[in-house]
């Protein structure tokens, strides 16, 4: 029995009668082409979603970060060799970040980064056969919000599904927290979050708030927010 949009699907289920635009159907995570024509094979458990006109994906659990081109991530420098740094972004292998990929960096003037420092970077390339590469500049060689993050801040790891919820425009959590505290936050698609505020106490409170919200469903987050106020 083929699954339809909105159903809960598990690996092995088949989706038939796809909507396509000019013969093209776009698939997101958890879906792969099936031997039969115009069919997709589900490879992850979750809810089948569809966006008009031709985009399908499965909304399910993801635990381990898998690098994707263009993702903004928070990483920790773990190795430094010559002009290249190795950065832990939580995926199966370390990503590389050239020291020249910072705004205004030249061979003589390189950013002063040490092992253990935190950076906010963008994935320039992420190919499963190759090491992923990070940059801290956009295509105009401007840093924008990217670059080294202050060591006064605090890095925590949260669930990947929670990252998506936090980044949702409708999510009230960060707005609500912002009314009470003054803080900076960098949320990486890899589940690492960097938080900084004026004093350690506030930072810890923010961290606790995020951890508490992680366990709650979307509706309850609003409730959590109210409690915090």
């Amino acid at each position: 029995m083929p699954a339809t949009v909105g159903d809960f699907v598990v690996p092995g289920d088949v989706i038939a009668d796809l909507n396509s635009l000019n013969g093209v159907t776009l698939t997101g995570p958890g879906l792969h082409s099936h031997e039969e024509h115009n069919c997709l094979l589900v490879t992850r458990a979750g809810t089948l979603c569809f966006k008009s006109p031709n985009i399908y994906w499965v909304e399910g659990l993801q635990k381990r970060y898998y690098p994707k081109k263009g993702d903004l991530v928070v990483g920790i420098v773990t190795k430094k060799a010559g002009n290249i740094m190795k950065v832990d972004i939580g995926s199966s292998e370390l990503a590389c970040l050239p020291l020249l990929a910072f705004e205004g960096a030249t061979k003589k003037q390189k950013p002063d980064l040490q092992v253990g420092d935190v950076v906010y970077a963008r994935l320039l390339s992420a190919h499963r056969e190759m090491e992923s590469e990070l940059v801290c500049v956009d295509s105009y060689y401007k840093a924008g919000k990217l670059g080294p993050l202050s060591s006064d801040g605090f890095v925590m790891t949260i669930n990947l599904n929670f990252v998506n919820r936090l980044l949702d425009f409708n999510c009230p959590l960060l707005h609500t927290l912002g009314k009470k505290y003054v803080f900076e936050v960098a949320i990486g698609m890899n589940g690492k979050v960097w938080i900084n505020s004026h004093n350690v106490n506030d930072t810890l409170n923010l961290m606790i708030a995020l951890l508490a919200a992680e366990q709650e469903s979307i509706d309850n987050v609003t409730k959590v927010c109210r409690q915090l106020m």
Partner: protein
Amino acid sequence: MNVIDDNNLLMRKVNCKLDILSRPDGSVLLSQGDTVVIAGVYGPIEVKTQKMLINKASVETFYRPKSGTPGIGDRLYESIIQNICETSLVSALYPRSSIVVIIQEMQNYGGIISCAVNACCFALLNSGIDMKFLVASASCALDDKGVFHLDPDKLLSDKAKANFVFVFDNIAKRIIASHTSGSFNLAQYEEALELCKKACDAIFDFYKTKMKNEIANKV
């Protein structure tokens, strides 16, 4: 979880708790009757250079007995579980990385292979690694009188003339693994297979309901 309304064709109660460990990417505590295992999955993670495969992920399985170090009997379970994982995972999506599955036996009161395979599938589902299909395992025993007992406990299977363990996929319910002990004839084998196949349907439903709840809470 009642499969068929006949006392000896009833499965023992299956219970599970997902995400019981914080470090692994997917973990589950699964109990079938008094048999309990914990399964944990890490992956895809960094791979040792020796084991690196350039076209797919290397799958490593470890079966830990309740006490002591793994013996040669555990190696047999390990190799069966590893083969099952390798076929059910879409390992081509994760080249140059490794997927590690650890099964820790907590209590063995019969049907440990079935329980381990089911726990392993649950943990993989929970970790969000891509799979081609789900797998479910059921066991049954044939006693001296020629009566079949589904999902036997240790007492029953020790006394039995033959024991059967089957693993099926959820697409066409084909046989992925079959492991037997004792002697039997072809007709009995066919009957055992049909019996376990029916029981596996219930396990597939169980996977689905559990994961649905889990995902509804998390996403």
